[in-house]
């Protein structure tokens, strides 16, 4: 890619969230780590236990945002959803939805990045470190898809 073309390419943010100490809940952070490992110009990856309101700053700084989370009962191996801003209020601070973060980014910073939710199917969520075998397969498929969408070269994914 030429320097000029690189400057015109969208800035991409991948936020993978979940708890690696709860088996397949670690799918989101695993994707973030894989993307970080592969690298790529103008692509940033963040891992987090859960979304937080200050993530709106990072979201506003990018043209494309991929939220990556484990899903309890979605399609296998993964599903991709287009996300739009939608404010909400919860009864606990332990929940913050991607739509709400997009709404905050729009309201506070006037930013409306293209946003996707990559929902990777998980199966077990006990207090155990490490993904299940089936979730690991789904992770590989999801990372392969995402690297393709992001224009990253095929590479061995460190899972």
């Amino acid at each position, binding site marked *: 890619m030429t320097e000029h073309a690189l400057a015109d390419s969208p800035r991409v943010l991948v936020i993978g969230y979940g708890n690696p100490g709860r088996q397949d809940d670690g799918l989101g952070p695993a994707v973030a780590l894989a993307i970080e490992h592969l690298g790529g110009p103008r692509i940033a990856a963040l891992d*987090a236990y859960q979304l937080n309101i200050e993530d709106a700053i990072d979201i506003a700084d990018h043209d494309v945002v991929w939220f990556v989370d484990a899903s309890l009962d979605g399609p296998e191996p993964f599903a991709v959803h287009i996300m739009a801003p939608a404010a909400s209020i919860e009864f606990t601070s332990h929940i913050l939805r991607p739509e709400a973060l997009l709404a905050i980014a729009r309201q506070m910073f006037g930013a409306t990045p293209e946003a996707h939710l990559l929902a990777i199917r998980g199966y077990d969520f006990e*207090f155990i470190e490490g993904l299940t075998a089936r979730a690991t397969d789904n992770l590989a498929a999801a990372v392969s898809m995402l690297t393709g969408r992001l224009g990253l070269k095929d590479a061995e994914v460190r899972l």
Partner: protein
Amino acid sequence: MSDVQTARPARKIVIDPVTRVEGHGKVTIKLNEAGEVEQARFHIVEFRGFERFIQGRMFWEVPVIVQRLCGICPVSHHLCAAKAMDVVVGVDAVTPTADKMRRLMHYGQILQSNAVNVFHLASPDLLLGFDAPIATRNIVGVIETFPEVGKWAIFIRKFGQEVVAATGGRRIHPRLCIPGGVNQNLTVEHRDRLLKNVDQVVKWCEAALDLHKSFVASDPELYATFASFPSSYMSIVGPNDEMDLYDGPLKAITADGSIIFEGVPADHYRDVIIEEVRSWSYMKFPHIRSLGREAGWYRVGPLAQMNCCASIGTPIAEAARADFMTLGAGGLVHATLAYHWARIINMIHCAEVIRDLLHDDDLQGTDLVVTGDRRPEGVALIEAPRGTLLHHYTVDERDQVTSANLIVSTTNNNEAMNRSVTKVAVDYLSGMEITEALLNHVEVAIRAYDPCLSCATHALGDMPLIVTLEDADGAMIASRVKQ
């Protein structure tokens, strides 16, 4: 079976927020034969399986592992476990650098966690009204009316996270503490970066308090009575009963401020607290031993911290505390909504403590770890953002953890939340209809405590509020889901 059901004197209304992964929490409102509210229970999924997760681990791994418990306050668990493991390695006092690094991390964590509650969770209710339309009763709606709130919310939170990151490294897995000390000091670069913003953060916290007080002034009767009742309180306190959120012995007081116990060190907690298990909940019900099962419940968290302490050691927060305590007209403050006011005072205090610590050269010290003679057991206390947190571990001669007992803040507030929901149900339930107003008010009461749910997982899935009306036989009369 039908005879038994007919004989039951009560009907139930079930409010059922389904958690994402395991089990569910729900609110059950029990009515008597006359259709009056008899009792309410807020059911929360407990940390099932956590003890098994810890057992067999090497004790020095535990301060890192326990962060998996909660995505909102991993730092609190990290620090409390480290304090317990200090005891295990025979260390009764860490070095000044280690102590201040841990305190810096802790106060940064409380600042950012309280900011989420105050701005994101509570401000829509308080500033827009409990019954404002759901389409606008959210942080975005608040920002439209009070644009500065969005700035405070995001940048105070960001500052707190930067403090945590400066002390502990990565945001998903801080690694500051090791048994007996810390891994690192604070670099001058980190110090100077934080110093650039800390005065602004203090000012924003003060402005947030002014805004909150304007809400209180708009309807003092609602503020004083909503979901409220007299109660006992418990927190740790520092020397001379000065507020200390990081370390100190336990103190508990009755609703009139009389001392129940004080000066109780962490390893004597079972002398004063009993953890009761009840059949209908996974949560334990701790209560004060001397007061017994029925009268021994208490509240923890910011409101308890204000009521239990005699002063705060930073000037702006101390002035705010003195002003706050006038709500009690010479006694304690019992208003449940006052949790939010107390939370903002805590934010001011945290910002002031951070500012003071950043000027302390001990943070650049190089004496980081102390060693001692191994002990088989360690207990520690800390005030987490939602209140008193206790970690208790036993460790065998092979350095493996053989047992773990945690009493988290939400567990301490278990009975108090039941009482608040009961009060709301008494005040707002009308007939057999599950109204939007009832749902809203139940949520407002729960938000005051901001309970930790089974919070270590965040897999996709909705968490709707499901309200089910049941008759005396347990049959559903009506159900209402709030997404």
